[in-house]
């Protein structure tokens, strides 16, 4: 709310008279009234309580947007902020608070109903409905996006307030990850797939065109699993048959020396400049701690030779001696072949194929 209003205020003043902003707004919105006439930022606004006078929601100045006052845009409407949620990669259960503000100055508005479209994987918590929003009163709803749910989250919640339906679309990709690392006894194989359209004559004259500007990757490898972890991995593979997985570029392991919980910086002991995929094809990294079966996915904001900065705070606590950072791609399980060695131990040959996704 504050941010949006601040941006609005700023842009309007810049459009009006650059550099002439000296006014401060320290009154409550309820008491704010304005003198009609030509507005000039070189002179103070005449604000005060005038009995019986209520400024119109969109005053005369709204006919020329360049001269409109910020308060002309603020009142006589319902504010819902944020009015959309882009959860990006859903790797853990997360909650989002949506602020409601009845900016009508003289009208009660009733928050009467909530409905939804494809809500699987999410939940909404509202005040007890119907909920009365008095003039200028605030309220909130909380939307929870669960770790489990559909692979592509495309949900819309509809809030009925004052008889008007407001939409809150939710978008995200539910990404799974397996913390267990591949068994190097069977060498992992990374395949880079291009696609070229070729017309070739009998004399081997050719016309060629590249259809894919960056390669699609495939990782083939083997997990050696046993006991509870084996059961968990098999269940996760079954659950993830229609989901996206974060797939580590297994030969570009980066060894962390410092991972600060709640911070965005990771210091590594080997150089990022050696990591071709990390530099050329990856936007995301995974923090893998196999001993605790923990993986955290982060978007890379920037990097230097020995550090990586993520776009969001690192949530979990890691023991750097047990943790490895991998560049990752997003892929689906192409095949999984399970060969039990004993009743307690199994080899799982797995193949992940990269899928290009919009996040």
């Amino acid at each position: 709310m504050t941010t949006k209003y601040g941006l609005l205020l700023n842009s309007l003043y810049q459009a009006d008279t650059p550099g002439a902003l000296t006014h401060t707004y320290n009154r409550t919105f309820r008491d704010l009234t304005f003198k009609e006439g030509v507005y000039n930022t070189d002179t103070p606004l005449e604000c005060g309580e005038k009995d019986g006078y209520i400024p119109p929601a969109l005053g005369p100045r709204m006919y020329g947007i360049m001269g409109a006052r910020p308060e002309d845009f603020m009142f006589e409407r319902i504010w819902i902020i944020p009015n959309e949620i882009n959860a990006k990669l859903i790797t853990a259960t997360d909650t989002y608070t949506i602020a409601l503000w009845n900016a009508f100055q003289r009208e009660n508005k009733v928050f009467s109903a909530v409905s939804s479209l494809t809500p699987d994987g999410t939940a909404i918590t509202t005040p007890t409905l119907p909920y009365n929003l008095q003039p200028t009163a605030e309220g909130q709803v909380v939307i929870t996006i669960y770790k489990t749910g559909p692979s592509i989250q495309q949900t819309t919640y509809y809030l009925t307030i004052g008889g008007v339906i407001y939409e809150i679309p939710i978008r995200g990709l539910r990404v799974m990850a397996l913390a267990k690392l591949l068994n190097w006894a069977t060498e992992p194989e990374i395949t880079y797939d291009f696609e070229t359209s070729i017309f070739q004559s009998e004399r081997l004259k050719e016309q060629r065109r590249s259809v894919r500007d960056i390669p699609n990757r495939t990782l083939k490898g083997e997990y050696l699993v046993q006991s509870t972890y084996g059961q968990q991995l098999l269940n996760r593979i079954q659950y993830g048959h229609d989901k996206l997985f974060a797939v580590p570029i297994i030969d570009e392991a980066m060894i962390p020396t410092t991972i600060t919980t709640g911070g965005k910086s990771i210091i590594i002991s080997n150089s990022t400049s050696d990591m071709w995929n990390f530099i050329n094809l990856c936007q995301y990294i995974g923090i893998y701690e196999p001993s605790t079966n923990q993986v955290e996915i982060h978007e890379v904001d920037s990097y230097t030779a020995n550090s990586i900065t993520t776009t969001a705070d690192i949530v979990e606590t890691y023991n750097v001696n047990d943790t490895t950072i991998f560049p990752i791609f997003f892929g689906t399980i192409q095949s999984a072949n399970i060969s039990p060695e004993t009743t307690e131990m199994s080899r799982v040959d797995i193949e992940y194929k990269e899928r290009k996704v919009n996040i």
Partner: protein
Amino acid sequence: MANDLQNLGTASLFTLDPNWVSNPKYNLIPLRRLIAFAGTADSIQSLGSVPVFSCNANYLLYNRVRKNYFLTFMNTAAGRCNRFWFKHPYTFFTLKNNAGIGALKLYVERQEFDWIYQGYERIYIQMGNGDVITRKITSVVESVPNNRLELSFTPGLDRAVNVADKNTIGRLLLCRFDVDSFSLKTHIQTISEITTRVVELLYEYVLEV
């Protein structure tokens, strides 16, 4: 010194050498049309002046530098799309006389290269220190009394190339990868191995002047 890469046009040079643990394999793709009907003699029509090479080879990417070089090259080539110069690892020419700095000719053992010479051929000279010299052969003259071939080129050599150096002199082929899929088998973090195939582009030499 450094590489002296001349006469390569716009295509880049693929500098990796194959892993000879598994021998490279070369095929010749004949450019001809065979016409045969029942009860008649066969007829052969030529579709090109010389056959086309293809080559299967394994490369051991034994450190990050080589591995990243290969990945970058593969990405630039975009699979089968873009052409590049490929060092045929077989020694095509045996040096017969020393060539000094600035030399515009190489004298090599007579081996009937003049039978197939088309005018677009490039050679490479792999020096003992790993440097590579490339040149386009502008003429081939056979000298029967001297039992040698005279290979001409410009510009002149930037260093002496001597018989005693045992340098490899081979042919450069204008190629593209013949696969869109590159599978790197990962031995350890820093060592990978890949087998790939290239094919010669006979009709594109004229584009690289």
